[in-house]
């Protein structure tokens, strides 16, 4: 069992943890043509982070996390296109609140169940949200998607441009805030308890821990983060479509997280980065067969590189240390 998964006893910031932020800022200056992909990657990192919290740390496997992502996106989109609210911060807040409420209510439903039932319920809830988005055409746009999403300047100063410079920095900033919060949470007593619940739920219950209450809090917080990520993507694209909600994006984000390495925060950074960049590259070279490439890559990871990309990194580190 690698040392780097789950709870860490030393919560101090390591130098290596600054790398992602340095890289992200570098990209802003060095690759100005790739900022729309960059903003998308940052959003999905936030989304993956939310999933890591609930699946990696709390041990709840969900095939329906895009319910929150999608609801967050649609909330932001509908409030902007149909109600006329355009302040980006306010929209993020509204999405957070709506998804928080949804998180609590669905959490109460699913967290008392186990394994397959739980998995199915998460799936059913996501599929339900998809159907609502699909059918309520007058407010969601249905299969055509929600156009007319107008986002005002951030703090009244920074306009969203079509080169996505503002969007990129905005996403980076929000990601930074939530990364900090999640990191603090995970290293706190609350985080220890979560890891304990994931490793052995019965034992935790036996020592008197109100397991469901802990899980509910984690689940709700995770839902809020996913909702904010959804709102971010709505703001970046100024458009909301059906493929942000439902089973497929839920499966996709799970794949991205596992690819990066689950239960270690930074897997959520590496996974979406690798997946989305690979998808971007493969879709360009072989528009017809990128499925094959992704499938093979995933298969290789599962068979030979359990623990995802960061798992490989672990093994290398351990190997180097032991051979000294």
């Amino acid at each position: 069992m690698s040392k780097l998964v789950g709870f860490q006893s030393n919560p101090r910031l390591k130098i290596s943890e600054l790398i992602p932020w340095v890289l992200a800022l570098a990209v802003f200056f060095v690759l100005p043509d790739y900022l729309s992909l960059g903003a998308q990657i940052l959003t999905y990192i936030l989304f993956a982070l939310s999933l890591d919290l609930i699946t990696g740390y709390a041990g709840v496997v969900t095939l329906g996390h895009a319910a929150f992502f999608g609801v967050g996106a649609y909330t932001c989109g509908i409030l902007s296109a149909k109600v006329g609210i355009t302040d980006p911060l306010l929209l993020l807040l509204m999405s957070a609140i709506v998804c928080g409420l949804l998180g609590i209510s669905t959490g109460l439903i699913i967290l008392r169940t186990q394994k397959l039932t739980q998995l199915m319920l998460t799936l059913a809830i996501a599929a339900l949200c998809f159907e609502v988005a699909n059918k309520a055409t007058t407010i969601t746009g249905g299969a055509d998607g929600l156009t007319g999403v107008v986002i005002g300047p951030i703090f009244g100063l920074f306009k969203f441009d079509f080169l996505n410079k503002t969007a990129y920095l905005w996403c980076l900033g929000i990601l930074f805030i939530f990364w900090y919060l999640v990191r603090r949470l995970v290293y706190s007593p609350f985080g220890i308890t979560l890891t304990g619940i994931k490793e052995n739920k019965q034992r935790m219950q036996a020592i008197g821990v109100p397991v469901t209450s802990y899980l509910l809090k984690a689940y709700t917080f995770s839902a809020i983060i996913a909702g904010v990520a959804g709102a971010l993507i709505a703001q970046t694209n100024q458009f909301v479509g059906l493929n942000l909600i439902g089973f497929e994006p839920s499966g996709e984000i799970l794949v991205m997280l596992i690819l990066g390495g689950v239960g270690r925060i930074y897997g959520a950074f590496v996974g979406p980065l690798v997946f989305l960049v690979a998808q971007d590259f493969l879709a360009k070279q072989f528009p017809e067969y990128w499925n094959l490439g992704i499938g093979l890559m995933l298969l290789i990871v599962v068979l030979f590189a359990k623990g995802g990309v960061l798992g490989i990194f672990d093994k290398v580190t351990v190997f180097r240390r032991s051979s000294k």
Partner: protein
Amino acid sequence: MKKNKFIQFGLVILSGLMMSVTSAQTVKIGFMGTYSGPGAAQGDQLDKGVKLFMKLNGDKLPPGVKVEIITRDDTGPNPDVAKRVAQELIVREKVNYLTGFVWSPNMAAIGPLTTEAKVPFISMNAAAARVMNNAPYMARTSFTLWQSAYPLGQWAAKKYKKAYTAVSDFAPGHEAEEGFIKGFKEGGGEILGSVRIPLANPDFTPFIQKIKDTKPEVIFGFNPAGKAATGMMKAYSDLGLAKAGIKFIGTGDVVTDEELQGMGDVALGVTTVHHYSANSTRASNRAFVAAYKKEFGENLEPGFMAVGAWDAMEAIFYTIREQNGKVDPDKTMELLKKYKSTTSPRGEFSIDPETRDVINPEYLREVRKVNGKLANVEIETLSTGIKDPMKEFDKKK
């Protein structure tokens, strides 16, 4: 030995210089097709249209001008993906034109983008009409739903009194439904009911069964061609609607040429209105179909989407030639607004200077057996140049 190498080296440098000089004018066309997902069948049509054009006419350019086509996959009716990909094409690849687009939702998503970035856009297929209203850089060489649905409604009202409509639930479907109902009601017909079928639906049976039970004289159908067309026809056949005396009519999408062979004899007699039929005996079409079959296989029929792609490429190349390779977005739009084609496989068509939408001929067709194979036979020309009726009505409001 050394002398040989020196010459080789020199030649390489020389050809490099020559290439960099002659490729001074490369016009980049961003082509957004659909290569994955269930909509790939339609995307395949666009792809074939473009490939055929490039093979036969790819060199019809002013000297020193090259065209580079950058192909991308929108993965289906996914406006989210389409928007991001279009953005990349514009920002990263710096394309001069944007074209392709099977799906109307995708086209709707990038409207503001083309306006902000000033990139001329020609839809090869996406047909929803209202999308183009606030997008001055968008034009279309395909069709709009009202162009076929409205005249069909008028024609149907002369023969039938009661109809039921069944359309796919997205913007083009809604427009087809509106157009047909308006035409039909204007002619004194009665609409017994309307159903909107989810876009991603595998089985039409329950919907068609309901329609059968309501007993209309005719069912008006619309779907985005491809697999859905076969599905709808299958339900119509399986449930014995023809035997029950309910005729099937629709826009040309429901008996789209490339799927028609797979539909079986139940499709015989289905009457549709559309701007293109592979069976048409027009000289320009005969040549097109022959070239298509030669390139892609004797058993493959081109459909209206391949024609839309072909014609869009023609239009784009025209604007490139007129500007001698130095393309400017505003000049391109001016040229497009005045564009007329007399050599299209569909007949003559032009682009409406006011709305930048396409003015199409519309034919009344019936599915018959020609040389043992099913074909859409043009039995009447309803109009040689019909503007989008929806915009006309919108104007009058």
